[in-house]
């Protein structure tokens, strides 16, 4: 099939059916949408296109944001939550994929259904349910009270509006775990299983099979998934908004607050915060890409 960038003389009809033309509308919608948002966001953080007068072009927004007394607290909080939930989510998802393929037999529909559900249930509903379960007077606490383990709500551990963001991490990690499982499963079942079984017959230990065969084989799916998961955890709004307290707050919550301030000059501050988040994500994506280049086994183009 002809490559995208080869321009030969051909009929208009052929051109219209070329991969470039058929993928163009899709790329336009998504690329324009996300690309515009990116460019607009970064630009606005420097003062371009401000909705009201009085926003100078330059680093003012960044200065204001970084000077805020709670900025570093929020930044650390956001980073901690993102890293912790990504580690748990990616680690857990990888393990589940591994367990599911290191035994022969089909993956049952019910397992897929459960994983799909966990991914698909909207974040707002998931957070609401976690609150009902895990607040100090929530369902689990009441079961503990009924079992005689505690008799007052304040004896139950604190998950929400706490300085460690435990509830937020639990929310994000459970959803991300399912997501990573889902994303790595096709590669795991299609390629890794075969390779792992082969390695087993060749005498590889379980640990060797996991580290040297399984992980590199699912890396093409796992690495992008890790990037997506991290980006999501860092930029997520619903979970910290519903499960977090006043202090510390995540940067995503702070950004939206600046955005919705009646003082429209604060919009630049909002975009400054989101640009900072974007830069962090970029750094992590870059790191993951480097990891990918060094460890991914090249896939054969013939198998399709």
């Amino acid at each position: 099939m002809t490559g995208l960038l080869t321009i030969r003389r051909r009929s208009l009809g052929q051109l219209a059916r070329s991969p470039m033309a058929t993928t163009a509308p899709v790329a336009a919608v998504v690329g324009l949408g996300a690309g515009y948002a990116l460019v607009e966001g970064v630009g606005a953080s420097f003062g371009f296109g401000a909705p009201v007068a009085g926003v100078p072009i330059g680093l003012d927004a960044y200065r204001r944001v970084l000077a805020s007394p709670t900025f570093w607290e929020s930044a650390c909080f956001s980073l901690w939550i993102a890293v912790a939930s990504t580690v748990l989510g990616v680690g857990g998802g990888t393990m589940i994929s591994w367990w599911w393929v290191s035994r022969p037999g089909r993956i049952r529909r019910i397992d897929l259904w459960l994983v799909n559900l966990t991914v698909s249930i909207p974040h707002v509903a998931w957070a609401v349910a976690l609150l009902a379960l895990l607040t100090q007077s929530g369902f689990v606490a009441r079961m503990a009270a009924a079992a005689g383990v505690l008799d007052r709500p304040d004896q139950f551990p604190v998950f929400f509006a706490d300085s460690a963001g435990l509830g937020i991490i639990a929310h994000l990690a459970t959803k991300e775990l399912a997501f990573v499982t889902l994303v790595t499963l096709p590669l795991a079942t299609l390629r890794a299983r075969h390779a792992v079984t082969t390695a087993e017959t060749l005498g590889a230990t379980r640990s060797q099979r996991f580290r040297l065969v399984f992980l590199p084989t699912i890396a093409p799916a796992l690495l992008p998934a890790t990037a997506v998961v991290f980006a999501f955890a860092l930029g997520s709004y619903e979970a910290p908004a519903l499960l977090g307290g006043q202090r510390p707050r995540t940067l995503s919550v702070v950004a939206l607050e600046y955005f919705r301030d009646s003082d429209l000059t604060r919009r630049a501050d909002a975009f400054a915060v989101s640009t900072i988040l974007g830069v962090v994500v970029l750094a992590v994506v870059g790191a993951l890409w480097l990891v990918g280049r060094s460890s991914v086994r090249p896939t054969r183009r013939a198998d399709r």
Partner: protein
Amino acid sequence: MIRIAVRSALGSLLAAIVGVLAVAVVSIRWVFPQVVPDEFSLDLAARTLRSPSTHDALVSGTVLSIAVTLIALTLAWPAARALARSSGGGQGLVVAIMFLPSIVPSVGLAMGISVGLLNLGVDGSMGAVILAHLVPAVPYAVAILTATLMRYDHRLDLQAATLGATPLQVLRHVTLPQIRAGLVAAAALTFVVSWSQYLLTLLAGSGRVITPTMLLFNATAGGNPVVIATLALLVTVPVIVLVSFASGSPENGSDDGRVST
């Protein structure tokens, strides 16, 4: 063994999540230390479900998500077909573009898109929200459809064409029946992506387009636990139904690892 453990863990988590909401819906004053509610009542739940604002949100949300699904699938189809067949360099570029919305932090994405729509002058309308939802929905649709089509042998199409079928006939009688399960999965999951959006709907719609997910979020900021639970189930039950439709398809890796020839 492990599989059963994982299944039980996930299963119990989901059962707890849905269960605690369901019990909250049918009870009143279900407070600490009651494990089983002392008082049951359907009044609040019924009132919430009957209220016009709930109906309006349900209608808006459904129309919105159906529109997003239809448009996303229509846009995704030719792209997915091209991606499934081609092996050229351009494929990487398109995939990278598809990837972009998932990498941009969602707060920044939502804020940027809403400003874009504001500059176009269309913010606050259903159309604006549809456009906004397409940004996360289309990559999802492309991904699922590409996976579906990669398993489909398009030589069947060519054969039908050589036998004299028009493109439309090929589509209707050859392609679609084969990939129907995958198409259903793509539609169901794309619908769920749109249905679950909160921030995009809020900002692109300037708070004027209300979906059940938005109602739920607003209800948490000061609402009755029974009402919150009712709305949470209202948001979640359609998702459970749709995911059940989608989960049966082979694209989710339920085969036993045979490498396709």
